[in-house]
């Protein structure tokens, strides 16, 4: 990073392109957070209401940030899971099925073992994480042992998951009404519900895995150059399977928070997670070809997507414009936040 700045001739220190690309996602987020209040201000100005820019913003308020954080928390867990896979240059599309299965299995275990956190039912939480790990492990096995591209293997496993969840529920929805478990949503510390702190903890764990463990470093090695990693004696297959297993655990975390948020586990619990998580990872600046990015990028990406979703409703954008706008913003964010000069071809 410093080499390119050093190479510049004398004069004012310019920000290198690399630095810019590195911080672009955060920049996009900041711009968005300032942009939506501007629209609000324009609207109130048109209506002749008193409105001091930023200060009177409904969007830029702690309460609204809490709302954004609530909707971002489950998505963040799922997106972190898929981040590890994308770092390896693979892709995991099984999240919708895995989240549904974990949510439903959690609810069934939770209700079956007492239905309140104050009983043995708390075991349903590690139970759900194990279910996620098993799903991810199978996913990884199918990908590595049967040599099916991760795209297809995981997509297929996702369908299997959705089908299995349907089999478990028979199409019904299971309510999880335990006050202690729902305190994930209802209890707030410093204005933010408990689930946001759980997600934050998950993020820190993911960061630890990414930066302080051999497995984390191996993800980068595989994504940066699989041949090289293999030649250096790395058991790439093992890393892949462990990666998918880890992703499964984070999908399960996402499932737990999703159930905590709406108190319902059903086959549809996983719906929508594929789009939001993949978009978030890419918008955050993690490259789809692997080796670049990480969980902090994903945090920014998830926040960008959720800020856009929330902001569009807050400024009252007509619904038929919302989807298109989101698509355009995604393209813009990817253009800004990834360095595509170093990539010789895009597939």
């Amino acid at each position: 990073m410093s080499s390119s700045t050093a190479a510049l001739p004398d004069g004012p220190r310019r920000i290198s392109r690399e630095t810019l690309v590195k911080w672009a996602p955060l920049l996009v987020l900041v711009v968005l957070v300032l942009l939506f209040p501007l629209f609000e201000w324009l609207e109130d100005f048109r209506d002749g209401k008193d409105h001091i820019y930023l200060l009177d913003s409904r969007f830029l308020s702690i309460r609204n940030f809490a709302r954004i954080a609530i909707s971002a928390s489950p998505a963040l867990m799922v997106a972190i899971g898929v981040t590890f896979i994308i770092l390896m240059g693979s892709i995991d599309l099984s999240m919708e099925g895995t989240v549904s299965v974990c949510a439903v299995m959690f609810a069934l275990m939770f209700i079956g073992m007492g239905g309140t956190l104050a009983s043995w039912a708390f075991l349903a939480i590690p139970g759900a994480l194990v279910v996620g790990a098993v799903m991810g492990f199978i996913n990884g096995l199918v990908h590595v042992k049967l040599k099916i591209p991760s795209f297809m293997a995981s997509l297929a496993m996702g369908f299997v998951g959705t089908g299995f969840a349907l089999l478990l529920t028979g199409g019904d929805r299971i309510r999880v009404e335990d006050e202690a478990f729902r305190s994930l949503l209802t209890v707030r510390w410093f204005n933010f519900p408990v689930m946001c702190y759980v997600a934050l903890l998950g993020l820190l764990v993911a960061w630890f895995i990414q930066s302080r463990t051999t497995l984390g470093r191996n993800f980068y090695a595989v994504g940066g150059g699989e041949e090289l990693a293999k030649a250096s004696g790395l058991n790439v297959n093992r890393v892949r399977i462990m990666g998918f297993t880890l992703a499964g655990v984070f999908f399960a975390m996402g499932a737990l928070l999703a159930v905590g948020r709406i108190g319902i586990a059903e086959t549809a619990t996983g719906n929508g997670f594929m789009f939001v998580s993949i978009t978030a990872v890419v918008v955050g600046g993690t490259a789809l070809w692997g080796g670049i990015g990480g969980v902090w990028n994903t945090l920014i990406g998830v926040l960008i997507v959720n800020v856009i979703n929330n902001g569009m409703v807050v400024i009252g954008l007509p619904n038929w414009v919302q989807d298109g706008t989101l698509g355009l913003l995604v393209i813009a964010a990817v253009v800004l936040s990834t360095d595509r000069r170093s990539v010789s071809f895009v597939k």
Partner: protein
Amino acid sequence: MSFIKKFIEQETISRRNFLLASAYGVSGAAAMRMFGPSPAMAASYSDPTVAWSYRNRTNPYWNEIVSGGEAFVESLGKDKSFLTHLINEGSSEKSLADVKALLAKTNGELALAIDTNDAPNARPVVESCVEAGAYVSTLWNKTDDLHPWDFGDNYVSHMSWSDEGPAEQTARILLDAIGGKGGVVHLGGIASNNPAIERLNGLKNALKDYPDVELLDAQPADWDTQKANQVMSGFITRYGDEISGVHCANDTIAYGVLEALRAEGMDIPIVSYDGNPQAVGLVAEGKILATVFTNPHWGGGITAALAYYAATGHFKPSEEPNEHREFNGPSIFVTPADAAEFKANYLDNVPTYDWKDFWGPSNGPIVYK
């Protein structure tokens, strides 16, 4: 390597046999058709296959519909599995292809209940069935120019629901509850879906009589709990305390709205639609003011029953008046006052319906605008 040679030989022979057999099959079937009963003449069958073609069972609504179909075949003294399921997964092409395949397999001895996934697909489905001599009853989707009475006996009936009126009534309950003034928001279904449009129109109709109530916003939540949850939090940010009531297009949306309100510690009246068991429970607790039960269990059962009893010759559709061939399904209001009673009557014990009482619970002929 002789075993390989032998294997290839065997394969060649079996493939040849297969080709011969299938060639015979096609021409044989054609010959049968030539000498068999003319398809235009309605034949009755003693034991037709009964099939339900629908989107999938993930959705509680369709799950109820199909459970009605299963209850009907059980009333015939058969096992649940006697009902053939054609699952279109939201694809009109698959819906039509499945029907054609089943027509070929059953030689037209078929009683089909179907939601054709979208309105234009109803015509090809009906025409294929009529041509093959099968009996078909449709639910929800058909174009306005397609009528059962134009197809003799084979297009038995069409059932739909008119949601505008009931949605207007739930809206009135909501608007009265907020004292006839303030702001309401509407969370709708998939914007292009007919029920979604009708339910929003119902709210708008009711609002005409309440000049002091403002419709602050209406956004689609795609019949999805999580989407509804997010849209509602957006509304809360945008309008905050201006929102005094919420009109939801269905129960799944209402669940998401309730949780968004709960997260904010807000408690404002909401109304809903569909009468799912959990929503009825919430009505009984007073958390939802009203929902409308459309009795999908009966709808699913009676649609299959109509096709079946027409196919067996129990009744002759062409002798029935038009309002027996195109009619609206029932809409039953559920409010806190009668929720417990309703739950006991309809949900805790699913009533045993008389599947030969085709029009008893129905709700008048379909009116085209």
